[in-house]
């Protein structure tokens, strides 16, 4: 298309065309070439998942007695991991929808990955709720007997809605790229792929009616998905905040969980981005600029998290009502102190410093900051769940909780599943949002001949989600 429009300048045409071709090649590369390392990696992940399935089968046979959970600390690693996964699912929404709404052009090469993460993380997160059930065979009771008064039902509704919406939101902008795959890969790949792309491209031809329809659809989806995403992590926090447990009795919980979710979501996106960039040689599209911008976002959310911590702990800590003193001691000085201070200093302060200092404000520094953040956010969820339940309710000795090998295995399998789904996804679907990147490149203008000639063409899709 660039050909007909820019027929006047030979050099420019060539530059644009070759750039477009390079882009398409980069997007197609993961599908056309598969290295041996890929299979080794997949085999490794399958091994971890297989081991996790074995551990879960033990749990199914014997009951939850094989976990470290007991009556007084009745939630543990599974619920922690559930909250963590739902948290990182916010990567996609934030990057994709909010940046799309605010028309931040630099987002285009990373939106697809962000949306992958959302969908995959939601699937993994939802699994962990079922894994945690004492009677997974009765999970349908939630549909049959569901009571809207229960926070669990709010969660079921919010997460299923969010999953549906994020699949739609992943799929819609992918249609033109799927059509590209359908056309470019016809005859070059296995028949199932050709059929799959043909089916998923929903007869996309790229005519103006289709562009207008997809533009409208993306606009609606991106606006709808933001409140849905916010609601999801708010109701996840309400599972805790709606109980009569002092450490969870906080009005800030919803907002705090949403901020934490976006925080860990951005960190996860940075990590996934760094890996895919390296593996699939996407250096031309994912540049240091992307890491830097996301790093700033990370630092900003780190500050919000620090503020949330201060705000929550100062209001309760000043008064030390009821069992708060016990909770403060176990959290800041006692058995959770190591975790808490790692979270606060290593997960909130240190990443901010790494991002803000000019010497470490590079890809390595920002990826390191992201790893710190992700670990810290998992740890935070762990002590929110476990320390919250540990506060004694009656005159008894506080109990303790130590996860068993079953819980660790199942949790690792969950992370392996997350990695596997992303790995497979990348091999099947376009990893780069080709048309959006191309559009953005046009908007920036060709570096060879920067001319406003491309501007009018852009106006047409302005409302259509660019």
């Amino acid at each position: 298309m660039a050909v007909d429009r820019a027929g006047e300048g030979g050099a420019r045409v060539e530059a644009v065309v070759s750039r477009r071709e390079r882009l398409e090649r980069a997007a197609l590369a993961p599908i056309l070439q598969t290295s041996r390392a890929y299979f080794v990696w997949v085999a490794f992940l399958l091994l971890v998942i297989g081991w996790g399935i074995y551990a879960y089968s033990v749990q199914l046979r014997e009951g939850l007695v094989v976990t470290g959970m007991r009556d007084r600390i009745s939630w543990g690693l599974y619920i922690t991991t559930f909250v963590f996964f739902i948290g990182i699912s916010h990567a996609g929404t934030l990057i994709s929808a909010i940046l799309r709404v605010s028309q931040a052009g630099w987002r285009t090469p990373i939106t697809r990955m962000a949306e992958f993460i959302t969908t995959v993380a939601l699937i993994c997160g939802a699994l962990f709720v079922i894994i945690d059930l004492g009677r997974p065979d009765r999970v349908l009771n939630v549909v049959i007997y569901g009571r809207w008064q229960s926070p669990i039902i709010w969660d079921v509704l919010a997460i299923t809605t969010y999953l549906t919406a994020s699949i739609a939101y992943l799929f819609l902008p992918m249609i033109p790229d799927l059509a590209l795959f359908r056309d470019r890969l016809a005859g070059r790949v296995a028949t199932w792929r050709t059929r799959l792309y043909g089916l998923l491209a929903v007869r996309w031809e790229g005519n103006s009616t289709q562009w207008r329809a997809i533009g409208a659809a993306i606009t609606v989806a991106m606006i709808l998905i933001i409140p849905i995403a916010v609601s999801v992590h708010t109701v996840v926090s309400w599972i805790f905040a709606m109980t009569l447990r002092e450490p969870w009795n906080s009005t800030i919980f919803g907002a705090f969980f949403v901020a934490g979710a976006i925080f860990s979501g951005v960190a996860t996106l940075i990590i996934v981005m760094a890996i895919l960039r390296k593996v699939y040689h996407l250096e031309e599209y994912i540049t240091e600029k992307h890491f830097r911008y996301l790093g700033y976002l990370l630092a900003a959310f780190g500050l919000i998290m620090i503020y949330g911590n201060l705000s929550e702990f100062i209001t309760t800590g000043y008064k030390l009502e009821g069992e708060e003193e016990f909770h403060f001691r176990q959290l800041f000085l006692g058995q959770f102190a190591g975790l808490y201070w790692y979270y606060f200093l290593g997960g909130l302060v240190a990443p901010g410093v790494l991002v803000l200092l000019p010497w470490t404000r590079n890809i390595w520094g920002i990826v390191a900051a992201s790893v710190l953040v992700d670990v810290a956010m998992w740890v935070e969820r762990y002590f929110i769940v476990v320390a919250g339940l540990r506060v004694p309710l009656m005159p008894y000795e506080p109990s303790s909780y130590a996860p068993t090998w079953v819980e660790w295995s199942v949790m690792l399998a969950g992370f392996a599943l997350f990695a596997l789904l992303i790995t497979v996804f990348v091999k099947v679907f376009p990893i780069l949002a080709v048309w959006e990147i191309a559009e953005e490149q046009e908007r920036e203008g060709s570096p060879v001949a920067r001319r406003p000639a491309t501007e009018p063409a852009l106006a047409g899709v302005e409302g259509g989600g660019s």
Partner: protein
Amino acid sequence: MNEKGGNRQRPSPASQTSGGKVNRRGLLRVLGLAAFGLAPLPVLPRVLQAALGGAPTARADAAAARTPDGRIRQWTMIIDLRSCDGCQSVGKPPQCTAACIEGHFAPEPMEWIQVFEAELPGDGTQFIPAPCQQCQNPPCVNVCPVGATFSTPEGTVLIDQNRCIGCRICMAACPYDRRFFNWGTAPVPPEAYLADYSAEHQVPVKKGTVMKCDFCPDMARAGTLPYCVQGCPRDAIYYGDLEEDIATNGRAIVAASRFLSQNQAYRLKEDLKTKPRVYYISGHGEAVGRDPFTRGRQATRWPWTERAKGARVWKR
């Protein structure tokens, strides 16, 4: 490149105004389809219940007990701590707990009525037998996603273990730590598995579900006092009906309202406004001659040595 599809061909300004507009017929069609799609939602759960053969609602099996003039009885428990010495003088583990365990085949380590030893000012202690508090504003019932735990007209809270999915949010919600989970195959005698299950008696136990004190309404209806009341050697526990204003420990009969008021009865964690049906009269066993500085009680034991096949004992 263009013909191959997958590429954009942006709408020209002219084509933008024509076509693709929402007309009235299209809008009506969408609205109609939406209404058609949403209409079955309210009845969907019932259809699923019928298709899957589940019971429509979790309810107590028996009809509520009534006073002679037809009012529904409101079961209550009044525990006189002046008479509770944690069975120190008897030289046995707390007998209310023991009787409850035997009567309900409550699996180890579940103490549906548990005798806590709480500190008093000045370093003495008191014993507090704590059954499920039978809240009238029950946090556990509020949070249950499937209605497996429910309030009855008699003012008790029961659990239908045939419906419970084992999510344990009720355990997180209970401020009295009075809910217990069947973490594995429960250690109970094999004969427990021969009983007919009822939410009012919770025998046999079901793996992966939550249990707790059921307040023995089935026994009360049959004219018998709950196991714990029967088991108490010091007659510290009164059971009765607030509606008819009567309570008994098996020896004395009191007017519940007068008994509560005259003895400054209180409820646990009153400030949470959970409105328990279990009342306490403050004390440390002085009526049965206990010295508040005599600490300790014997550990609860589960009597059966023979256990169900594949059972595993766990700690609380």
